[in-house]
Each structure stands twice: as structure tokens, then as C-alpha cells.
């Protein structure tokens, strides 16, 4: 595989909803490289979720391309996984069954599926909750199941749509700290993460690169690289400087 190849490349993507004249996304381009954690930030309703669903192959762009390891995305593919804002756990399945759903596309035996799911659930810190149902879990635990489901198939791209915004701030903070550890501790590491957010601090805390979108339509306003060691101190000068820079760009 070409080491110069981007893991995900979004190239001149435009989109508008059927029957709505105004474009939601207008000529957006960016890319995610191996080992990169990319955040896409923009005001509420600017089309971030729509963009992520295009990258996942769930909806089709009007113009432009999304390229995954050299192949154009035309529908959901095996190597790309998704974490939902509202968890999207099926309440009638136990937690382990929910996680197992994540490897439906893999061509492996049932016992192997079970083994992987159990391991993944343990990695997100939920061993012991295999056979209970999502309803008994707290919000933070639900999202952990959601993350386990996304990671169980050993994807090379992880897409996350505001994964922390349904959680209270304290829980979100803990999970933000954990997610980097969970990602790092995988045997088959995830190559790139693309996370949607509208939380500036969160973006700066986690990402290597931040893509800032404008509102109506969504265009790339600016791309900012963040080069700080983890764990990042929110009160450090470089951190606060980056945050201010992003706010300035967003409100411009």
C-alpha cells in the first residue's frame, strides 16, 4: 500500500437535500492520514452529520468524491465504522449482542465473533455487563457499548458523530480521556479517526488536525494542525491559544 496515500480523502464534495434549493455542503475537501485524529467543527445545523454520513457511504454526495485507501466510496464498506451521537443501541438486544452486530460484515465463525465481542467490551471497561440490556446502563456506559460495537470489526477508519454531546460534562470528560487509551491499546490499531463536534475544547483536546466549517452552506474555512503531547493540559498557553484561534475563525 502506498504510504503517501491518504486513508480518507474528501474531494470537492457538495450536497443538497432533495427539494431544498440551498446547498448544505459546498465543495468541501480535506483528508485524514495514517495515525491522524481529525476533528470537523462547525456550528449546529451546518451539515456536519450530513458530511459524515456521506463519508460513511450512507448517503450519496451530489458532486465530488470520497476516497478510502484509493477506492471511491459508493456505499458502506467493511473498513469504516461509526459511533452515533445518541448511541443507537438496539434496546431489545443485550450489550454483547449489540457489540456482535458490529462484526456482521466479517466472515468469521460465531465463536470468533463472541470472543471478539467479549474482548472489546472488556477493553471499554464493561466486562460483567455482557448479558444486561442497554436500558440499565448510564449514558456514558451506553456510549462505551457504542464504541465497542464500532471497534469490534477492527476498522481502519472510525467516524464519530458528536460522540460526547449526549453525555453530561463530567462523564464526557472521563470518556474523552479514555477514548485515546482505548484506541491506542487495540492490537490492530485504527488508522484514522474523523470526529464531528461543535465543542472547541474537545476538538483541541483530542485532535491532530481540526477542520473548521462555515454555516449555510458548509465550506472549509480553515484547517488547523494541533501539535501537542497527550494528555493535553487545558490551561496551558498553547492550548488556550489554539482554542481562541478557532473561536475567532468560527465567529468571523
Amino acid at each position, binding site marked *: 500500500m502506498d504510504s503517501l496515500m491518504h486513508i480518507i480523502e474528501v474531494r470537492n464534495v457538495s450536497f443538497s437535500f432533495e427539494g431544498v434549493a440551498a446547498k448544505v455542503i459546498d465543495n468541501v475537501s480535506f483528508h485524514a492520514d495514517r495515525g491522524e485524529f481529525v476533528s470537523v467543527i462547525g456550528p449546529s445545523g451546518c451539515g456536519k452529520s450530513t458530511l459524515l*454520513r456521506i463519508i460513511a457511504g450512507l448517503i450519496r454526495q451530489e458532486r465530488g468524491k470520497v476516497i478510502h485507501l484509493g477506492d471511491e466510496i459508493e456505499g458502506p464498506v467493511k473498513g469504516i465504522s*461509526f459511533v452515533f451521537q445518541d448511541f443507537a443501541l438496539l*434496546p431489545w438486544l443485550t450489550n454483547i449482542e449489540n457489540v456482535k452486530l458490529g462484526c456482521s460484515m466479517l466472515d468469521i465463525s460465531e465463536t470468533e465473533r463472541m470472543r471478539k465481542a467479549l474482548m472489546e467490551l472488556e477493553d471499554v471497561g464493561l466486562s460483567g455487563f455482557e448479558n444486561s440490556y442497554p436500558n440499565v446502563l448510564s449514558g456514558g456506559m451506553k456510549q462505551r457499548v457504542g464504541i465497542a460495537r464500532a471497534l469490534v470489526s477492527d476498522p481502519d477508519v472510525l467516524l464519530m458523530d458528536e460522540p460526547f454531546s449526549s453525555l453530561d460534562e463530567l462523564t464526557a470528560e472521563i470518556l474523552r480521556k479514555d477514548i485515546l487509551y482505548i484506541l491506542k491499546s487495540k492490537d490492530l490499531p485504527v488508522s484514522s479517526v474523523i470526529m464531528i463536534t461543535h465543542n472547541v475544547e474537545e476538538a483541541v483536546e483530542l485532535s491532530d488536525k481540526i477542520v473548521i466549517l462555515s454555516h449555510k452552506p458548509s465550506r472549509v474555512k480553515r484547517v488547523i494542525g494541533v501539535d501537542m503531547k497527550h494528555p493535553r493540559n487545558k490551561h496551558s498557553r498553547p492550548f488556550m491559544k489554539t482554542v481562541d484561534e478557532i473561536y475567532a475563525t468560527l465567529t468571523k
Partner: protein
Amino acid sequence: MVALNVLGLLAVLLTDTAFSWMRMFVALGISVLISLAVGIYAATSERAGRIILPVIDIFQTIPIVTFFPFVILIFIGFLPGVIGINAAVVFLIITSMIWNIIFGVYEAIKAMPKEFADLARLYGLSKWQKLSKVYVPVSMPRVVEQSVLSWAIGLFYLVTSEIFSAGNTAYQVKNGIGVELTGLALSGNTFGYLLGIGIFILFVIATRLLFFKPLEDYVVRYTKQGVSQGRISTRRRIYGRVMQLRLFRYLQSNKKAFTAYLVRKGGAGRGVKWRVAKVEKKTQKRGAAYYIILAALAVIILYGIFRANLAADEYSVFVALLYSFGRVWLAFIVSLAIAIPVCVYVIFLTKKSSFYLLLFQIIASIPSTILLPEIVALMRGYAYGSELIAFIVFVLSGVWYLIFSTMHVAKSMPNNVLEVKNTFGVRGVVAWKKIYIMVILPGLITGSITAIGAEWNASIVAENFQNVHVGSGIGKFLDMTIASPGFRMSLSNHYLLLMLLALLNIIIMILLINTLVWKRLYSRVARIYG
């Protein structure tokens, strides 16, 4: 000797009720399976949905019980004897049970978080996995909730069809509680009749507690938040069917405007700007589409009748229809006169409203037609007895829909309405005019549609019942035509007429409600807040 007789009777009644219940369970099982298939199809394919939904809407407004003799003839034609009859009865029950379950499935899938569909695509679930892991489970809470309601409706049709068939030796259902009760009542065995009704009620309560309650408890976990579905399903039991009607939704959007109006009148919610004109325009558009479908159907039916060349009995059919129509509407007015004070008492004047609700629910699940044989026996020999019988059955069939619908809607009444009433000590005429009527009106109106439908159904049965000698009426007329030679041809014409009448009925209802109530309210709201 006497004890033996009683034991024997008990055994007969128990087996017959068990047979009736078997028909019900078979019908429910089939209804649920078909509903899942149709509902999921309609919800996942936009094109299919556009065709299926209006068709179902119309089907559930047609009193299908009127087709019963016709259905029996067809089934007996294909299947011999006992099997054919039972298949016909089960078919009839299905046609009464199925529509609200289909809508339940449809709405459950439409209301499903779109992420669930995304999941299925992301993880490449097969068709079968999509069904078993997503679509069927997501429908289950609504299926159970609607089944409870369907059971009550189905019981009405079960007993009705059994009673219906009891008088006709040509096609009699064997082993059914309806048949048995008819026999007991007409032979003057009041004790046996009461015993039968007692067993019937026991079965009703047992089914509720031993079959539906556990199911409700089980599917609670299928709901997203795990909120108690049981509470909702109790509330929705009877009027759930009303809620499924597109017409109801049409009225519902009116109701929202109305509730907003109420809240403002009550002094609360100040600053809520309610855009009357916008809502009105939208609902009128939807209403118009509905009328067009109905009108098109009416034209087709009229054309069919014209082609079939209805001859000599044309006039008598018309008269019969007129009689039934008048009877039904009169019964409806009486039902209103009963429902309004009952509702006002239960909602405003007593603290035990949940007790009354439960009581009403149990009484309502006893099909009014089950009383028919005994009323007939009691009224024997009185002048106008038959008219009275028909009337009582009509009222009993319709009044519950009014009561349950009203009580349901009144639940969403803003709390401060009662507070306003108590704080300012509003009483008497003022309370009636400014509070009671205003609060119960929306529910009363939505209940009216189903109430009229139910009374119409009852009219077919009551007039058709062998010992009821009402002067004229369409049910009576149907029975006569069945007995006449060459009836098949004329029969189908009359069914077409009936369908037309059912549709006309609904259209008249809607137009009346619109012109008499909503238009006036709107102009008032517009005048005050415009």
C-alpha cells in the same frame, strides 16, 4: 338431577367459550403476521406506502360486518361445512382486528430512530437480519398495545358473527359462546344466560391479565427508554383505533390549535404565538386529499350500481337505508346525551376517575351484541319493543367510544384549567359553558367518528337478528334478499350501496364537524388573537 344439569351446562358453556377464544387467538395470530408484513413493507417502501395507507384507511371505515353473509357464502363455496364457516368467522374477526395493528407497525417503524436503519446498512445486515434484529422488534411494543385493543374489537365481531349466524340454519357456526347465549336467551333460560355472560367476562379478564399483561411487561424493554409502556397501552386500549385513523390525525391537528386556544383562554401560556392560518391551511389541504379519494370511490360505486341496473327493489333499498340512517343518527344523539354528563362527572367532579376508567374498560369489553338475545327475550310482546331493542344495542355500541376518547383527550388538559376553576370557584352554567364543554369537545368529536361507525355496524346486526321485528332497515333488507332466490346478484349490488353509504356517513360527519365546530372556533380564535 338439577346439579347435573348445571354442571352439564357449565361444561357446554366452557367449551363453547374456549372455541370462541380459539377463533380469536387464530385471528389475532394471523392479523399480527399480516400486519408485520404489510406495515413493514408500507413503511420501508415509499411508493408502497402511498398506496397501502389510504386503502387501509378506507377499509377501516367500512362496516365489514355487513359483508358477513357474503363472506360465508364464498368460504362455504370453497371449503366444506365446519371448516368453511370457521374460516369465515376468523376472516371476519381478522378484518376487524388488523387495521390498527398495521398502522401501529407502520408508525413504529416511521418513528424509529433513523440511526437504526443506518446501522443495518453500515453493518451490512441481510434482509432476514434486518427483519429479525430491527424491524420486527421495533414494532413489538405497538403490536402488543394495539393487540389489546384489537382483542376488544374482535370480541365484538366474534360474538356478532356467531349471533348473526345463529338464526340461519343454512350457515350456522357450531360451538361458540354467541350461538350458545342466543339459544339460552331465546329459550328463556335466564340463569344459563347469566352464567354464560359470567364465564365470558371471566375469560375477558383472564386474557387481559394472563396473556396481555405479561406481553406488555416483556416488550417494555423494547422501548428506548424503558418507560412503562403498560400505562400508555391501558390509556390507548379502546380509542387507539380512533387514533389510527387518518381522519383522526386531521382532527388532531385541529385539536392542537384548539388546545392552544384553551390554554390561552385559561390565562396560561401567554406569549405563545399560535399561527392559526398556517395550521388551517395545512389541514385543509390534507382533508381535501381525503375527500378526493372518497369522492372517487363513491363515483366508482355509483357507476357500478348504475351498470348493474338495479331494478324493482331500488326504491325499497333506498327506504331501508333511510330508516337505518335515521336510527343510527338518533342513537348517536342519545349516546352523546349520556356520554357528556358521564364524562364531566368523571373528569371534573369525582376523585376516583381511574377507578371509573377501569370499570368502563371492563364493561366496554363485553360486546353489546351479547346482550341482544336477552333483550329480545325480555321485550317479547311489547309494542315498539323491537325498535327499542335495536336502539339500546346501537347506543351501547357507540357510547364507549365517546367516553374513552373524551377521557383520553381530557388527560392532556392543562392542569391549570382545573386550578382556574377551583381558584375562582367557577360553577353552574358558567362552568359548563366555559370549562367542561370546552375541555371535552375535542375528544368527543374524535370519538364520534368511531361511535357512528360502531352504531352503524350494530344496526346491521340488530335489524338482521331473527326475532327483532323493526319496520324497515338495511340490515333487515339484507336478510330478506338472502332468503330470496337469485339473491347473489342483488346482494352484491346492495353491498355496493352499503359501502357508499358508509363513505357518505363519514363525509357528512366531517363536514358537519367542520362547519359547526372548527370553522366557528377558528374565526373566534382568529378574531381574538389574529
